[in-house]
């Protein structure tokens, strides 16, 4: 990766035009010059473009991209999985950023658009994708942005007392209930903060769990979005959970949830939110 960066940098020094960046499908995407009209179909990618200070290069975003405020004025081109092909083509983008799982990529490419599929799923992915994005946009800020995120995560971790090491947390993604496991992006943040996740890594990133599993694990703290918190104490057996009895529940607003679940430049903000809540609810 470092070599590639140096290479790209050299290429720029010599003002040779073309450069290539590999995306998450392993496709080498070539650029004659840095893209100026970008459509992003994934909120975390939208946030990365803006974190690199290139928000004004965005000309369209998907309907879930809502941060920073600047992107709210941009034309919406549907969702990441059901994008409006015509609306995208009409914006004449010189680059479309999208997730790897999206089917629309092939169609957009067939129409002659340049497509880059990037899908950050873990902390390491965020770093890697941020670097790729820096190369694509030809800005040198990627490293600095990542260091900022790192510093923020570190600060959040340091803000917590040593006793959190024994705190066991259950992070509920939705009321099915799907939980955030240790290997998920959210789980990585929890590990970083030094707390224990009741969902071990062998259960996968976002397993559907038996509600009984939570009762048996009896977590000290529950983290959940406000939509899913409603009625939580009424679930069979949950009223006697330690976290519920002691009111050690972190309830996040939808805006806060966005921050927590998006593997992007705001992951340090997410870590800070969790740390603040832990400080508040722990005795």
């Amino acid at each position: 990766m470092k070599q590639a960066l140096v290479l790209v940098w050299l290429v720029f020094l010599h003002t040779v035009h073309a450069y290539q960046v590999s995306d998450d499908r392993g496709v080498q995407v070539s650029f004659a010059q840095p893209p100026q009209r970008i459509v992003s179909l994934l909120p975390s990618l939208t946030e990365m473009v803006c974190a690199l200070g290139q928000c004004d290069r965005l000309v369209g975003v998907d309907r879930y991209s809502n941060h920073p405020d600047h992107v709210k004025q941009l034309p919406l081109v549907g969702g990441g999985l059901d994008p409006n092909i015509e609306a995208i083509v009409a914006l004449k983008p010189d680059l479309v950023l999208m997730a790897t799982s999206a089917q629309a990529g092939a169609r957009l490419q067939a129409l002659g658009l340049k497509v880059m599929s990037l899908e950050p799923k873990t902390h390491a992915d965020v770093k890697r994708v941020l670097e790729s994005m820096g190369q694509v946009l030809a800005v040198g800020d990627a490293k600095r942005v990542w260091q900022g995120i790192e510093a923020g995560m570190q600060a959040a971790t340091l803000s917590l007392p040593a006793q959190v090491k024994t705190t066991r947390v259950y992070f509920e993604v939705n009321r099915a209930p799907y939980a955030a496991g240790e290997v998920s992006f959210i789980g990585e943040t929890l590990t970083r903060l030094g707390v224990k996740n009741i969902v071990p890594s062998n259960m996968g990133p976002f397993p559907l769990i038996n509600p009984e599993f939570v009762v048996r694990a009896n977590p000290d703290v529950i983290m959940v979005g406000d939509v899913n918190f409603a009625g939580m104490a009424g679930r069979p057996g949950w009223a006697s959970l330690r976290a519920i009895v002691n009111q050690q529940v972190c309830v996040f607003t939808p805006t806060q949830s966005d921050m927590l679940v998006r593997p992007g430049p705001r992951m340090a903000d997410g870590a800070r939110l969790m740390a603040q809540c832990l400080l508040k609810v722990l005795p």
Partner: protein
Amino acid sequence: MTDIGRQQRRASRLVGGLLLVGLLLVLVGASVGSTGFDSVLNVWHDPLAWQIVWDIRLPRTLGAWAAGALLGLAGAVAQGLFRNPLADPFLLGSASGASLGVALALVLLGVSPFAADWLVRVGLTGAAFVGAVLAVLLTLVLARGVQHTLRLLLAGVIVGVVLGALTSLVMLMEPEVMQSMQAFMLGSTGFVGWTSWLLMVAAWVVCSVVAWVLSPVLDGLSLGEATAASLGLPLARMRVALVAVLALATGTAVAQTGLIAFVGLAAPHLVRSVTKTTHQRLIVLSSLMGGVLLMGADVLARGLMAPQELPVGVLTAVLGGGYLLWLMHRSTRSTAGTGL
């Protein structure tokens, strides 16, 4: 005699009407979209407008027609084959087979993030098609052939339920594929290009020819299996061929556009509400009806909430279902027992 003549005249008028409406809808389909009418007005000067009309709107509009025609055809064949007006083209398990295929493909593609580009492109459509065909084959195996209509129906239902459950299982194991699966299950004509369109039209031509040739079997079957057999037709082989038509038609449509509900069930009913006719004509008419139905839904899906789009499957269910319900009530009021 005069009644037959009248029905024939009605049938040919319906063909004319459906072709006309279809042509109109193609024109509307070429002009409606998130960029509005401007694209059509500037189509000769502006290369972008040309691309939007020629490479996006036309293939998707005609693709909607082709997918609808495939489903309409399959619906007519299924209802004739099973002698059951509630039969729909997905009855032999093809829909759940296609879903399972797509879910597995998504998981495989997800496991290896560096899956080649062609695999992504061929992968999902191919997996849907193979899944649909395999599901129908499985149904045939479980029903031990095609002789027994009821056994075939039951086997189809069982395969559908079991494969559906397996799909849910796959989604539980790999929740990451869930959103992509949802997109597939809602159905969309948005990604249809000229290649997909060509594939669907080719499949439609093949299926129509085979169904047209075999339609006497369907006519015979409508009089009961014993009558059909007494006509001296090689019933078993012809049924296998018709099941193959069903699998090919639904598999192709599902692979290109996802699961689009109701067109296959509604199209033959809508045709029958206008005219009583032989299966030979019914097959053609159902195709045209299905095509017009889906094309109309596609145009509405683009126009109703522009620049956002509605999933076309939602609209076909609302439109087709509403119209069918109205027809049903109208016919029960006027002449009880006829019509539907």
